[in-house]
């Protein structure tokens, strides 16, 4: 077929590569020695993770009295971090499942790394509620199992129990989805390797995959159905997280807008984190041909869209509070914007509503340094969103005599920093041992927008 450049659809892979070249490019970073940049990043992040591990050990041994919580503010840093990390994970599922259902073929280059990010973010998130239990070794009490206490079962009417089921299903399904996507690529690496330990490991993990048509035939449908299941799952997870708050009668929490507002915010923050990571990964691992500016551009547009939803949610929430004729609601919102925590509220508004607006300009969107800085601001803003929702709704409650304030202790800050250490350590290890790009899928879209005149094959 003649080489025809499409005016309608840009190619997904920047240079005209062959199938074998894709395998070589993606496998190259795994096969050579790690660069000094990788080592530097790995040392910093694993050291940070150790700081977190030390802090967690200390607070588990001593008790959560080491935190800055008090009778009035009973939830603060820990739950903020939990909701923040769960939110980060949601972009991975958006890219891998929702964009798959919408036939957005550009997702093929990004989905593997985004799904890995989801898994690591869920891991980080899971730590926080477990520490918050105070006696984490009693964690299994949330699982309904026949016990010697009656058996006294858990209360299935409680959103906190829903949350346990939602997060564990989400973690498991994300892991399975990721692994199913990995199997063909693991087989590719198995067949490339010389006999040895690595080959044996990849042979075990690839389950004897041989690229047979019979397997591909079922595989395609399994992948599609998993995407179909993961799509409502991701919406349900953050909706359920929001009901942890929305079913309480605390002014500022007790609102019906919470589920869609939380889901939009989660995807917004996650997309920003994917961009932050991708901009580094494509540079460090020399994958510019696969993670092209076009991918960055598409993700920036998603940041604008979800950022807009978040902005509208802020405005709606404030308006409804004022319009509600409920003095407590009105007080909480005025207190958020003008009270002692107003610095946190305005940090949130500036980072989440104003920052994404810069991305409307193509010039800024195609400048990766600018995009990188903007996404960091979005990450900061989204962390503050959860902090504002939790702390400002609690710290001035119905009785002015019990009003209090909240400041995190060094232990809490060390735990948050440590969770970033865990996240980046896991991500760096993933980049070293597994293919960062889904080779099997990229090969399928290699000629997209190139040979067939822009027709999707």
């Amino acid at each position, binding site marked *: 077929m003649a080489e025809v450049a499409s005016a309608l659809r840009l190619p997904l892979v920047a240079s005209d590569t062959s199938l074998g070249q894709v395998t070589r490019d993606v496998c190259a970073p795994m096969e050579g020695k790690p660069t000094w940049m990788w080592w530097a990043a790995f040392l910093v992040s694993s050291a940070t993770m150790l700081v977190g591990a030390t802090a967690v050990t200390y607070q588990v041994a001593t008790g959560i009295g080491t935190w800055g919580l008090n009778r009035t503010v009973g939830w603060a840093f820990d739950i903020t971090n939990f909701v923040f990390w769960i939110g980060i994970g949601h972009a991975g599922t958006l890219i891998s499942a929702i964009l798959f259902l919408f036939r957005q073929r550009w997702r093929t280059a990004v989905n593997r790394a985004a799904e890995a990010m989801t898994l690591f973010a869920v891991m980080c998130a899971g730590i926080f509620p477990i520490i918050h239990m105070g006696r984490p070794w009693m964690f299994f009490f949330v699982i309904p199992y026949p016990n010697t206490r009656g058996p006294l079962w858990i209360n299935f009417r409680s959103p906190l*129990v829903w949350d346990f089921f939602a997060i564990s299903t989400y973690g498991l399904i994300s892991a399975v989805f990721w692994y199913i996507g990995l199997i063909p690529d693991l087989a590719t690496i198995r067949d490339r390797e010389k006999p040895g330990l690595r080959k044996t490991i990849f042979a075990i993990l690839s*389950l004897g995959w041989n690229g047979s*048509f019979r397997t591909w035939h079922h595989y395609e449908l399994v992948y599609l159905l998993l995407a179909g299941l993961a799509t409502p799952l991701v919406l349900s997870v953050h909706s359920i997280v929001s009901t942890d708050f929305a079913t309480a009668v605390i002014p500022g929490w007790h609102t019906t807008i919470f589920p869609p507002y939380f889901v939009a915010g989660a995807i917004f923050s996650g997309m920003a984190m994917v961009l932050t990571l991708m901009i580094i990964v494509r540079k460090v691992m020399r994958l510019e041909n696969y993670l092209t500016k076009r991918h960055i551009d598409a993700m920036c547009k998603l940041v604008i869209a979800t950022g807009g939803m978040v902005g509208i949610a802020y405005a709606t929430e404030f308006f409804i509070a004022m319009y509600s004729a409920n003095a407590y609601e009105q007080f909480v919102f005025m207190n958020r914007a003008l009270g002692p925590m107003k610095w946190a509220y305005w940090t949130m508004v500036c980072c989440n509503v104003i920052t994404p607006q810069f991305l409307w300009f193509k010039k800024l969107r195609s400048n990766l340094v600018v995009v990188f800085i903007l996404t960091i601001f979005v990450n900061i803003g989204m962390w503050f969103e959860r902090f504002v929702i939790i702390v400002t709704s609690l710290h001035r409650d119905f009785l002015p005599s019990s009003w209090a304030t909240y400041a995190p202790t060094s232990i809490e800050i060390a735990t948050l920093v440590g969770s970033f250490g865990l996240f980046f350590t896991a991500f760096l290890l993933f980049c070293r041992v597994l293919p960062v790009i889904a080779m099997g899928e990229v090969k399928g879209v290699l000629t997209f927008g190139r040979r067939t005149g822009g027709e999707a094959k």
Partner: protein
Amino acid sequence: MNNRYVVSLFEDEHDLLAAVRTARERKLKIVDVHSPYAVHGLDAALGVRPSWMSWACAVFAVLGVSSMLFFQYWVGAVDWPVNVGGKPWNSLPAYIPITFEALVFGGGIGMVLTFFVACRLYPGRPAHVPDPRVTDDRFAMVLEEADAGFDLDDVRRLFSGLGAVEVREHVSEEAP
């Protein structure tokens, strides 16, 4: 007893599709087709029925939903009823979120396990690849020399003309 197989290797998915169609027209017995990625149109060219995995998904999803819904009802209304904020023993709306999670869990995990069993994928299974490059950049079509009228030279000429980079015979008990 050993069987004779013919493995044709292609570099391009379009050549593979054309070869598969020709082989079917000639009534040659296709044992399997191997490719590094899912080739679209191959199921139509081979004339296979749609995958039945959606049924596995549906069965396990229904199983997940019904067992979780029943369990929550049994716990809340039968085994140890606890008055939580004056809500009824059987608080059906409050059971919906977990029931939904059970749908996803049952459907997803059940279907994937069915897929592993149906395709005989398990850790430690030896990979039977006709050529190590079929997981990299080659497409392979495996034919069985099913009857005495099978002419290897003719088949070799036919598929080489259709773009095969290599056509070779493989003698073994099982298909490569």
